[in-house]
């Protein structure tokens, strides 16, 4: 049941909102009235949390974003998961002050971030939402929100965001940066950033960090490789070859992520082999990480070199 303020805005702009709905139906044949109605109900917590004078622009943004999300079946029963819907109900209201200020931008950014992270295999979306919720009270500007979200995304397993997240952290106020990075007690920001930049496997007492991880599985089991992979070091990561396709793998203490690469890049790369005592296994290393593969597994073992 919508609160009067929310329902009042929708009723007052009925013609305009109906026109937008008709237009969206043309654009998104999958748009369901029921899903959209449930979404509007779900977003009530956000409207309730903003000041009365900002309800109108916030409802406008919620309405347009809802049409786009429902039209693309990112919410509702046909969605890949209910996470985005949950985020609108539980996480987004915690940023009500920012939403009231810049409704389209903040709601759009947060929605896109959830969709983006959901699409990266291995990322811990729940951890990202927990981190964001915990930091919400300290985030007073859209720029700070942007940086905090990026740091949380990296810590949730999006390893390819590591460099960008550390750069974003450097621009935050020290208390917020320390909180976002889950710094050990007493550690200064500069020292922390130096440590994180120098050692991608540094744990610093963070329970989400680890010094070794396995990555990948057979495509038949939902993994990315249709044959046991082979790897070669390339810069901060590894070029991976499996079943005629090439990838670029980045890994650190918080996760690993796989990006597209070309076979030519893989062929050009040096093997970078290091000795291993494991039977039938091959190991290679870059400056910080050792990668171990075997013809008997579709997974790659990644370990800190130091």
């Amino acid at each position: 049941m919508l609160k009067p303020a929310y329902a009042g805005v929708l009723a007052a702009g009925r013609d305009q909102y109906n026109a937008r709905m008709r237009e969206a139906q043309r654009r998104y044949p999958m748009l369901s009235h029921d899903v959209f109605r449930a979404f509007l109900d779900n977003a009530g917590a956000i409207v309730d949390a903003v000041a009365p004078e900002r309800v109108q622009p916030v409802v406008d943004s919620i309405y347009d974003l809802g049409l786009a999300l429902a039209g693309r079946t990112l919410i509702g029963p046909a969605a890949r998961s209910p996470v985005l819907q949950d985020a609108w109900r539980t996480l987004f209201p915690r940023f009500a002050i920012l939403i009231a200020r810049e409704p389209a931008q903040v709601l759009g950014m947060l929605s896109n971030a959830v969709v983006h992270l959901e699409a990266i295999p291995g990322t811990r979306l729940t951890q990202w939402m927990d981190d964001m919720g915990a930091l919400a009270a300290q985030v007073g500007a859209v720029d700070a929100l942007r940086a905090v979200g990026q740091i949380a995304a990296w810590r949730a397993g999006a390893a390819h965001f590591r460099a960008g997240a550390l750069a974003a952290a450097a621009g935050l106020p020290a208390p917020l940066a320390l909180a976002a990075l889950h710094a050990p007690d007493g550690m200064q920001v500069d020292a922390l950033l130096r440590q994180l930049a120098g050692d991608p496997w540094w744990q610093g007492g963070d329970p989400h960090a680890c010094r070794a991880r396995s990555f990948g599985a057979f495509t038949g089991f939902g993994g990315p490789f249709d044959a046991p992979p082979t790897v070669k070091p390339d810069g901060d990561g590894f070029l991976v070859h499996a079943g005629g396709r090439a990838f670029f793998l980045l890994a650190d203490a918080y996760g690993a992520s796989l990006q597209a690469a070309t076979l030519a890049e893989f062929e050009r790369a040096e093997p970078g082999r290091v000795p291993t005592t494991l039977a039938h296994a091959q190991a290679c290393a870059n400056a910080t990480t050792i990668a171990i593969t075997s013809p008997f597994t579709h997974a790659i073992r990644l370990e800190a070199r130091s």
Partner: protein
Amino acid sequence: MAFDFFQKISRAPTNPHAKPTTREFDVADLYRGPVDAGEAAPGAAPGLDEKLRQAYFWIVNKAIISPHYDIEYNDGPAQTFTVGDSKRVLTLPSGQSYSSYVLLPLLTFATRRKCLFVGGPGRGKTASAILMGVLAGVPVRDVRRAMQHGHPQMTIADLLGNPLPADMVNAQTMESIRISWRAWLSMRVKIIDEYNRIPTRTQSALLTVMGDNYAEVLDQVFECPESSWFLTANDDQGGGTYQVIEALRDRIDVIVQALAFNPRFLDDLLVRIEEDVRPEELMPPELIFSELDVDTMGREVRAIAVPEDVRRRLEFFASQFELLDAAGGQFEYMTKDTARLSGVDWRDITAADTGRDRMKDLGCQTRNGVSVRNLMTLLVYAKALAYFRGNPAVELEDLRQVLPFVLRDKLHPDLDAPFFAVPEHAPYRTDRVSWLRHLFDLSNAEFLRLNLEHDDPVGEMAALFAQGLDGVSERETRARLVKIEKLIASLTKGKKLYGHLYDDLLKLKYLHQRYTNYLAWLRAQ
């Protein structure tokens, strides 16, 4: 509120190419996604080739209903199906393929050439031409007003402009008569609707504008800017109210046919009626090309390389058609053009053309050869297509795809040739595009059969000559002359004369003459 559906353009690279560059992951990607959050796209503005592709995809996805993907590219094996009693093949291309009806006009726009839309009434020829005008940044209303509509009473003054009445009365000399030039002459996209309804005399005035880029009335001259031309005709085979003069037809670079509307797309038409929208009025501003953009694009297209192996295929193809040994007594005059200029009946001449396998000889399928203008146009469009596909060099397939549209009205089939009498070749009598593509495939097959890819002694002789004559000794010159003579002897011994051999022999004669002249000069030193 504008109908937003028509404003959407492709944001992702429309033809992504893997670039082996340093990897940089943009953390801002986190906030780019399905909904607009005001996050700017990464990096600088897309290149003009990408913008051209965006324009293409906007037109095929939003503006032109039911595009036909007849320019087929494959990345690996394509799925094919044999359909019907006639055993026609339906191909599902494995690569990004294109609709000629949209792509060729776009390439025309990018290279400022001339494109003719043909097809029955009501198939969107004029609408497509208007889209090209809008792409150049001209308001739709102005594009419509500037469009010239051919009609049987169209005079030169209607087309080009009128002398000012006051000057006509008061002027003492022709130079002092000022002309009120028509606005379309100064536009960078020129549209002539139903050009085959223009009277012959007015067509001649149009020819001057199209060919030489200026207009002339009463000794007054108007210099037109470089522009792309889009003409429409219901029939490109000489129908319409007036026969189109040959010189005017020859100035047209490509011809594209508006294919039939597929009624499966009727719902898209319905949207336009219900929403009362015309796509040309809703073109996103990001897709508009400035004059500078088109200038830059032209330079970038010209910079696209044509590798030697691709160039050789075109040379070999073009050399098939000019030879008609019954037409000339001297070697150089054994051409179809000699026959044409003589006015002797074509059948009488071809009846005397004996000795060759007229089924196998590709030259027997045509009544003429490929002109210099046609070859230049082919190269320009092949470069433009490679540019459009984001490649730095022309591929053989690019050439194969543009060739039928360039030569459609230029290479005339001899429908009395044995090739067209074969029942399986019957569709080629009516479908010029397929015939020309088939002709190019046959030429390529012959090129490979003759192993010219790896063994081209005439090409080697030409490459040697291209290194220059500086420092070449008398002895070496004589040796080269002997080599040319031996090569001619080996090429002609016991062989029948085909078009490609004819051109090779003429090339060798040219080289022989250049060395002979050089030798004479050396001996005079």
